[in-house]
């Protein structure tokens, strides 16, 4: 399906240059962001980190208190020189988290709303709306009202509505969060295709590492109103700058104290690492780097920790085992070995980690919230 049209009306040249500053009692959003045409940025961060506020600022629904917003050589907002282009004139497509499909309009008229507002005649607007509903795979639902659509269908209509207005900048606020996992997976694949064909800039707020890793070219990590990391998805997943993102991408995050290459972890566990550090550190490693055995293996006692199985659950093709070793570790093992070893909750086992698969960073990991309760 490569029927996406690039219209004469919208301006994809230039791209987004945003310096956004918003002051609210108790917190400040201060973010600098650049994105070129065709780029898809995932914005991740904990609740309250400013993701949705950022989207609203870009859309023109929230005034900036400082900074400057430009698209190409057009200034969208510059509080310093009192320039402000309204939301209606920005050509921004917004899919809010709760969609906000107009309840009194059919799916078709919802999607035709944007083209109508951009001055198209009713018949032409409806024709375009029908095309977009077809592209999103919900053409046969055009006569339904929003309350007659399932969650996934409504999400498709909302995306069609945003795209039909031919925005330069597409803002998606957790587009897959409310959907059943199966529906989300299907739509994620399609969304990847639509975004690849879309020549504007896309910002995608998400709480799901899979969205960030599969849909985005770049991941922007927000924490307490600031960008703490901005990089390729694989890089962010490998070396996450915040504990939130580390957990988001499914890494084990352990805190300990390092002396030379030896890290002491909670519960007297010891980890030998490849790099030298002194002082408090944070160690991350993927669950696939952990092996589980019933007895400690012969040889080095390092990087092997006794623990009790807390829970066992299927995870993709593997089985994810949660152990209370070293303050809490996730291990992915094959279903075959889980069965053979009899890994059930309550069982005492040994977890081993390959030192080469761990990443150690000084605790300056900085932006980690200090009020977080101790890990179980």
């Amino acid at each position, binding site marked *: 399906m490569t029927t996406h049209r690039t219209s004469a009306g919208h301006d994809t040249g230039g791209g987004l240059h945003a310096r956004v500053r918003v002051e609210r009692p108790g917190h400040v959003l201060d973010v600098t962001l650049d994105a070129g045409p065709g780029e898809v940025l995932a914005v991740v961060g904990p609740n309250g980190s400013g993701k949705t506020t950022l989207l*609203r600022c870009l*859309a*023109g*629904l929230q005034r900036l208190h400082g900074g400057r917003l430009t698209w190409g050589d057009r200034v969208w907002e510059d509080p310093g020189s009192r320039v402000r282009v*309204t*939301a*209606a*004139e*920005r*050509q*921004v*497509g*917004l899919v*809010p988290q*709760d969609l*906000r499909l*107009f*309840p*009194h*309009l059919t799916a078709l008229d919802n999607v035709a*709303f*944007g083209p109508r*507002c*951009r001055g198209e005649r009713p018949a032409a607007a409806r024709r375009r709306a029908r095309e977009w509903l077809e592209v999103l795979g919900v053409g046969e639902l055009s006569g339904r009202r929003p*309350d007659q659509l399932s969650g996934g269908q409504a999400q498709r209509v909302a995306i069609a*509505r*945003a795209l039909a*207005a031919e*925005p330069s900048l597409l803002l998606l606020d957790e587009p897959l969060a409310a959907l059943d996992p199966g529906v989300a997976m299907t739509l994620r694949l399609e969304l990847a295709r639509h975004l690849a064909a879309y020549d504007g800039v896309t910002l995608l707020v998400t709480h799901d590492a899979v969205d960030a890793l599969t849909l985005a070219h770049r991941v922007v990590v927000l924490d307490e109103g600031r960008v703490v990391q901005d990089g390729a998805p694989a890089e962010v997943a490998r070396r996450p700058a915040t504990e939130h993102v580390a957990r988001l991408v499914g890494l084990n995050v352990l805190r300990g104290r390092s002396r030379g290459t030896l890290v002491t972890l909670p519960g007297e566990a010891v980890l030998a690492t490849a790099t030298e550090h002194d002082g408090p550190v944070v160690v991350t490693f993927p669950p696939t780097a952990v092996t589980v055995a019933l007895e400690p293996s012969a040889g080095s006692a390092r990087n092997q920790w006794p623990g009790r199985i807390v829970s066992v659950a299927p995870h993709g093709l593997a089985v994810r085992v949660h152990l209370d070793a070293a303050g809490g570790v996730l291990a992915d093992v094959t279903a075959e070995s889980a069965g053979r070893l009899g890994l059930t909750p309550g069982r005492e086992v040994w977890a081993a980690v390959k030192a080469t698969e761990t990443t150690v960073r000084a605790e300056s990991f900085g932006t980690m919230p200090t009020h977080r309760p101790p890990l179980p």
Partner: protein
Amino acid sequence: MTRGGVTGEPALGPPPLRLLVPAVVAGVFVALPLLGLVLRSPWERMPTLLADAAVREALWLSVLTATVATAVCVVLGLPLAWTLARTEHRGRSVVRGLVAIPLVMPPVVAGVALLAAFGRTGLAGAYLLDAGVTVPFTTVAVVLAHTFVALPFFVLSAEGALRSASSEYDAVAATLGADRWTTFRRVTLPMVLPGLAAGMLLAWARSLGEFGATVTFAGNYPGTTQTMPLLIYSVLQDDPPAAYALSLLLVGASVLVLVLLRDRWLGQVRAR
């Protein structure tokens, strides 16, 4: 658990008597006067009364002025309600308080206030008189009086309806390129229409029953300002049974309108 449901026994036990007894008293208190009207009315005189020119004039005038006043409430009150619900400014709470005053104002006082504004020597009335327009003691005065007392009913209920139609829809419409007027016309208004119907009904009913402000500001002239409540009051002086019958007629007319509107509008609300 299901046993209680089968027998109709409330799951939390029977309602306490000290709530139930006053509730029954309240119901009887409302029903008794209505029952009195129905039982005391000389039903056999109904056809003659209905054929009476003065009665028909008053009934027509009541329905006409109530309907026009409701229309004025919508045309002026909806923009006011929108301003209260959708804009941020310091004067908002002042305006809202001002709009609500006629709710708590005795109707006679409202009539006096209207005279002070639109009377021959009133604030605006003096200018109107110079322009050759006399408002008091005309049918226009009836509509003004009705609008004055009915406006808060409409504005407050319309504002409630506008607030419950989240402004997030406005935000989405804006990103789709709609200016605020287009958003109002194509998104907000259709969404709040069922809610507005309730406000219109309240305004219409308040207007139909209006007495004090009308008699003070518009007088009691058969054919031009004598609405049904005024006629009923006049008739009550020397022919109480006829007043009963006319009262019943007015109640019947308003209930009829209520039922017709309910089928038309509230039916749609429920279907949504």
